[in-house]
């Protein structure tokens, strides 16, 4: 059931379909007078289909936006369903109690016969997805391209909506109207953070969906008063939130690590650069913290942490309360300054930017340029000696002699 990661930008449509199934179910019950799923299921399908069509119609034939259209269809269809349901509760249709299960979901109340039906429908869904996988994939990512290469986009959209309606109709008995939306959206959203490809995303969504379902069922078995559906959803959401935070690559925590790593690198390089400038200018190598901050503004706590890291990496050494660059640190400072001046020169010569406008840009880019790019720059600028401000670019002369 969790396979419907496809729905990407239309995830709330699933919610609408879930609500809209109600009138179909109730009408089917009214017409045939029985609660068998074999009767109710087609009713649900037709209603779900109608709801999708109405959303389409409203968005194409008026200026109403899709989110409003979804909300309208959802609430009005649902209201019709409630009207019908309360109408039959007034009497003449006899026993209708099982219909409530469609609203809140009673996974435990399902009969073996019903499960066979769901099993069959699920098999059909999976089969169809596998069969049309390449086309669906193309359609899901870029419908305009799909139509331009001659795929029958209308049919694909039809297929996709039918599959959605089918999936929603099977799930609704288990978890109920409202929470069905979660089964569609949550596993797919979580999977999005773990997977780079559609096929991986489908697999992850399946894993999430199944874990959530099994966990929910276990909880409702162990504590008798616990409802299954809501627990499935809560478990799914918790898993999803954990993936948002901890997923490698796109997760929040990982992005935070990368960002703070960058910031640390920038602080360190700036400290080394400031020390390099100080030691080059007056020939004075030992610097106190006050002198350092006088030459360049640092944030106190960041500076402290940066100095600690640099000491650990043997880039600077400390005597008393003064610090100085080690040989390794001196090289590093020269490298940063070289990159800075190279970039200034490049901007000035190749981009025709005035030499008093290039400093800021270089200040940012000096932390990003890779050794390979550096070599390219040097070659491109024909082994320059001075930057636009007539300062020497350190380290190039040696490079040339090495070649």
């Amino acid at each position, binding site marked *: 059931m969790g396979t419907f990661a496809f729905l990407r930008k239309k995830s709330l449509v699933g919610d609408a379909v879930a609500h809209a199934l109600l009138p179909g179910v109730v009408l089917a019950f009214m017409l045939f007078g029985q609660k068998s799923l074999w009767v109710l299921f087609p009713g649900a399908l037709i209603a779900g289909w109608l709801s999708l069509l109405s959303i389409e119609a409203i968005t194409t034939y008026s200026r109403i936006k899709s989110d*409003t259209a979804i909300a309208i269809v959802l609430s009005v269809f649902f*209201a019709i369903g409630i009207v019908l349901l309360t109408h039959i509760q007034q009497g003449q249709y006899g026993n209708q109690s099982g219909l*409530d299960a469609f609203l*809140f979901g009673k996974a435990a109340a399902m009969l073996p016969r019903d499960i066979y039906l769901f099993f069959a429908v699920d098999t059909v869904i999976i089969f169809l997805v596998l069969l049309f996988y390449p086309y669906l994939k193309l359609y899901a990512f870029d419908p305009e391209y799909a139509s331009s290469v001659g795929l029958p986009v209308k049919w694909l959209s039809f297929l996709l909506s039918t599959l959605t309606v089918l999936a929603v109709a099977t799930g609704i008995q288990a978890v109920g109207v409202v929470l069905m939306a979660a089964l569609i*959206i*949550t596993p797919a959203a979580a999977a999005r953070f773990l997977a780079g490809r559609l096929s991986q995303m489908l697999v992850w969504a399946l894993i999430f969906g199944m874990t959530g379902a099994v966990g929910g069922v276990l909880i409702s078995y162990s504590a008798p008063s616990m409802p299954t*559906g*809501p627990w499935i959803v*809560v478990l799914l959401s918790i898993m999803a939130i954990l993936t948002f935070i901890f997923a490698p690559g796109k997760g929040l925590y990982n992005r935070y690590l990368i960002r703070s790593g960058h910031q640390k690198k920038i602080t360190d390089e700036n400290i080394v650069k400031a020390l390099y400038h100080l030691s080059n200018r007056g020939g004075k190598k030992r610097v106190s913290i006050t002198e350092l901050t006088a030459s360049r503004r640092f944030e106190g706590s960041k500076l402290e942490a940066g100095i600690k890291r640099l000491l650990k990496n043997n880039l600077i050494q400390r005597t008393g309360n003064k610090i100085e660059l080690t040989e390794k640190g001196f090289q590093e400072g020269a490298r940063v300054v070289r990159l800075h001046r190279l970039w200034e020169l490049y901007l000035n010569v190749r981009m025709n930017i005035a030499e008093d406008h290039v400093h800021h840009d270089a200040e940012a880019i000096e932390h990003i340029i890779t050794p390979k790019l550096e070599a390219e720059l040097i070659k491109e600028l024909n082994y320059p000696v001075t930057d636009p401000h007539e300062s020497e670019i350190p380290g190039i002369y040696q490079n040339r002699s090495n070649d």
Partner: protein
Amino acid sequence: MTDFWIIATGTLVAVNCGLIGVFLILRRMAMVGDAISHAVLPGIVAAYLISNSRNSLIMLLGAAVFGMLTTFLIELFYKRARLQADASIGITFTWLFAIGVIMVSLFSGNVDLDQDCVLYGDIAYVPFDLIYYNESNLGPAPFWLQSGNLLAVLGLIIFGYRGLFITSFDESFARGLGISTGSWHYALMAAVSVTVVLSFNAVGAILVVAFLVVPPAAAYLISKSLHAMILLTSLFGAISAIGGFYLADWWSSSISAGMAVAAGIIFVIVFLFTAFRNAVWRKTHRKSFEKYELAD
């Protein structure tokens, strides 16, 4: 008299929700209204457990807190975790609603909140929820609550008209003028939460959405200014409340659902009307265009 109170309360609910809904639609946040209406459930249950009554200040506070929490979570998922907007809405409200349902079944022994009430409210019992002052009957409590809410909503719209107007139509322009878009956003969301909670008893969690979205959407189709849209919304809301009552009466069904269906009927009529009008407009224009070409 019973009918009168039901219709009056229903009308007030419809007008309140509609007025708020106007701004939700203009901000393309219709589904956020849906999300809030579901997500206040845990707040309502928690407040109910604390205070043991349904019409209390704590209840309002609890729900308002959860309403704000919902908007906050949606923003968080959207901005920080870079999730799509619709997915973040979907995850947030299903999660909170699931927690709410679990709480209901966990404490079902001592909570007088049943699932039917959550679903479609019990506006039919409104006339029996009377308040008395010095032994004289002042009418049902929900009616007065809704009147108070109407005053609050009207106050927000009248005094905040400029801010709401500008922030709804052009956020960056509003920011340029120095209007705090964020605080208007949260003010509106708080209004949505409070209105949803107050209407919750009467119409239930899901049908609130119908009242929030459908009348303003119909008004949106045929109005050319925000003024007209607000007035038409109130009119449509009132008509659907009255019409819905008699529809439900005639067909012996849930009254609140009947009102929502009536709102849906109004929408369909307006929708068909505008679609038809547009088609005619296009046709006549094509004709005059062809004439022009021939004369040329």
